[in-house]
């Protein structure tokens, strides 16, 4: 069986267009950035920068770019090497000056239009690969099309979510406003892409082509698109992103690995927020000795180099000693406290609440807490196995706990700062005059009013938690070495990195795109929430 190429037989027709559009985009982007250094055009400009200074930016930018490209010896630029690097620098700067001067003759708006045009062309042509790939055999559209076909459930879900959200965006509050900002939309698309991929890929197993742990003889270190050795009927006939050093399918590992990240990172962030909010609100509101002690503790954790903390916490010896379980006991109690205090302070005067609803709620919450904390076979086995709802594997628990532990002091500081800022507002004074209790004021007056910055930070922090998970995997801590999560995979592949790129680059780009999506989403949210 033939191996797959990146774009298959179909690519022969469309590749030239795509490459032209892509190089045009880069060329125009460079021109736009160089042009952007100055806005010397326009009759309305007040004190225009003299052209000599205005030209310096583009000259340096274009000149240095050509110079560096010339030094690298890439084909069209190698003429600029000229034998002597200083001579070549001067020549490049002169070219930059001429180019910059030329650029100023064109209006900035035209260049921007060209950039946008080229980028739309790139996007449209790329989606042609993806869309055609959905309907034809893998051989026709190559690896790109085949992957697009595998991702069909994700595309459908993503399309449906976007269509519905854009249609109803006026009624959706802050989330709906996100669809007014291109940055926020791109971020949301990236994040939702991974959420759906994790859901359908790791949850329902609709996307992955092979078993992420299965090894197939003859597929060790194979390049992307390699046809499966000894494929039987029902097997997917290719390794879309090639095989790794243990002859496992890189594509399936990346897809299944997303499930681990997509579950642990947001969950750990939620717990870190619960801890940070439950401690930060009283520290900011009451101040005094409580604040001093808590701030000292949080500064202490923050003064710890994160990696040292991971190395100390996430080792088999420490897991054996049961320390993560004790830490989990302490950290996981905060959500219970948070829910209990919030509900009690709001509803305590309602009839039947204290006698009926509250006890039921507490029993459920404590039961969930106990079954989360108690692990049969470890030092903490409080619940009998019959009542224990779920067992978290100890290596996942320790990773989870350490990510929560590292993140909560920062959340604490943010919440404390926001509380200090808000507690002197009028509505807080009004609530105090009404005779509300301090916890009611903190949780139902202050917290809802600081939700904007907290939501933005929540997005950023999920990204940071993802990075931390990757760091743990990169050092081989926590999850076992064959786990398909991205960090561990990067660590496993980096020894042969200079020869076999795909096993490392695929998870690296996956991780980067998820974090990038979260950061862009946070940026979009910040922009839209500031607009009110």
């Amino acid at each position: 069986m033939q191996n797959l190429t990146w774009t298959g037989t179909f690519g022969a027709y469309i590749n030239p267009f795509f490459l032209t559009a892509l190089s045009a985009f880069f060329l125009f982007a460079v021109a736009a950035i160089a042009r952007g250094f100055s806005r010397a055009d326009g009759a309305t400009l007040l004190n225009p920068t003299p052209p000599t200074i205005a030209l310096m930016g583009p000259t340096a930018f274009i000149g240095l770019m050509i110079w560096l490209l010339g030094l690298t010896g890439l084909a069209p630029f190698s003429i600029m090497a000229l034998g002597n690097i200083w001579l070549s620098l001067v020549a490049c700067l002169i070219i930059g000056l001429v180019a910059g001067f030329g650029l100023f003759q064109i209006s900035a708006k035209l260049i921007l239009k060209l950039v946008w045009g080229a980028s739309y062309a790139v996007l449209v042509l790329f989606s042609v690969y993806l869309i055609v790939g959905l309907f034809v055999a893998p051989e026709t559209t190559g690896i790109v099309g085949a992957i697009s076909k595998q991702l069909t459930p994700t595309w459908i879900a993503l399309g449906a979510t976007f269509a519905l959200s854009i249609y109803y965006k006026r009624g959706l509050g802050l989330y709906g406003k996100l669809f007014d900002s291109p940055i926020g939309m791109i971020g949301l698309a990236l994040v939702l892409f991974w959420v759906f991929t994790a859901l359908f890929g790791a949850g329902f197993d609709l996307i992955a082509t092979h078993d992420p742990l299965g090894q197939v003889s003859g597929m060790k270190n194979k390049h992307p698109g390699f046809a499966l050795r000894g494929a039987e009927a029902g097997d997917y006939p290719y390794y879309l992103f090639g095989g790794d050093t243990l002859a496992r399918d890189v594509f399936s590992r990346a897809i299944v690995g997303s499930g681990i990240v997509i579950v642990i990172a947001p969950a750990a962030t939620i717990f870190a927020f619960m801890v940070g909010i439950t401690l930060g609100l009283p520290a900011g509101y009451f101040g005094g000795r409580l604040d001093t002690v808590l701030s000292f503790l949080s500064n202490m954790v923050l003064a710890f180099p994160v990696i040292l903390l991971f190395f100390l916490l996430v080792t088999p010896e420490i897991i054996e000693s049961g320390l993560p379980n004790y830490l989990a006991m302490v950290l996981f109690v905060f959500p219970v406290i948070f829910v209990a205090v919030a509900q009690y302070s709001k509803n305590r005067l309602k009839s039947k609440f204290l006698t009926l609803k509250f006890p039921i709620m507490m029993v459920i919450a404590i039961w969930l807490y106990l079954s989360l904390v108690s692990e049969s076979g470890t030092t903490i086995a409080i619940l009998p196995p019959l009542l224990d709802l779920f067992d978290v594997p100890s290596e996942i628990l320790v990773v989870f706990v350490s990510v929560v532990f590292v993140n909560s002091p920062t959340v604490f500081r943010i919440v404390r700062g926001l509380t200090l800022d808000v507690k002197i507002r009028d509505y807080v004074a009004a609530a105090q005059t009404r005779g509300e209790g301090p916890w009611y004021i903190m949780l139902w007056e202050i917290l809802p009013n600081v939700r904007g910055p907290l939501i933005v930070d929540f997005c950023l922090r999920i990204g940071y938690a993802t990075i931390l998970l990757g760091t743990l995997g990169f050092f081989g801590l926590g999850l076992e070495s064959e786990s398909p999560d991205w960090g561990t995979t990067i660590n496993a592949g980096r020894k042969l990195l200079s020869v076999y790129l795909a096993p490392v680059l695929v998870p690296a780009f996956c991780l980067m795109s998820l974090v990038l999506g979260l950061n862009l989403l946070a940026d979009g949210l910040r922009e839209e929430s500031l607009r009110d």
Partner: protein
Amino acid sequence: MGMFILRRTGVMLLTAICLTFIVFIMTNLYPNLEKLAKNEGNFRMSDAEVASYLGNRGYTQGKLQNYGEWLGILPGYVIKGIDGKTRGRCSNHGAVLENSAKYCGVIQGHWGFSSRFKEPVSQIVITRLALTGKLMFWVLMVMIPSALILGIMAGMREGSQLDRTLSTGAIVTTATPEYVSGVIFIAVFTSSAVGLKWFKGSATSAMDHATLENFLLPVITISLYGMGYIARMTRASMAEVMTAQYIRTARLKGVSFANIVLKHALRNALIAPFTVIMLQIPWLLNGVVIVEVLFNFKGFGWVLVQAASNNDIDLLLAVSVVGVVVVLLTQLISDIGYVFLNPRIRIS
């Protein structure tokens, strides 16, 4: 001001003592000690042999006692072991000599002996810190100017196309952790598969002799991650200054845009980035560890990983002391510097 520095130093000492105590407890948990004993002795030791090995070397005394000995406020142990030999802390767990000191802790300048490298800890820390210092110096030399220039460029005309491009670029770099950008750089610029063998994928030779070829990639990898954040902070600060009244006055007076940026706005816009840069240094420590492992540059971060994975107690404690001091010192410098840069701030 003097009082402020004194108080901060006091808090710093207290934090350092608390943190080293935590590290001490964690490294001295029994499973860790067992691993240490098996690494040092042999891997087939029975439980009883492990216990006597540890007992002979004073590890099974009270934790507070051991910590006091490490600090140097309690006399080092001298134990006549079950095997008949007398060992003492002050002779590196070896036979006690007549002239051995009584106290040998951090206060006496005795940082202990590394079980991984078989060298005095202080010597390891100093040589490795010097190597990491070299790396950090170049990182800061690359990161700070480029981050400031990018931030100022973006912030001087808020909302312009240049601003949008640079801000998005900054978001991309902050979204790329070192282990991702590092492997991408190695893959693109050093691998035989891509074919651009411009740089070396290993920085081991840079420890003696750093060249562009073996040192550029590690430096760039660390700088990129920190750069985006500093650039964004600089951008925010610059954008705020550019809307100030005195800038408008300068424009109305007819000062050219370049002069406004360079002479009027820049000085005020650089106050906030200074604190950000100082507070960013501890974060660079993470990047240093990752990059040193990835590029096999045997500096401080590499030592940290070695010490932690071998449970080298004395070395690990020294490493954490250095880490904590770096964090707290940068905080102190940023606070003091902020007061000097911004005369409106008073510390009572």
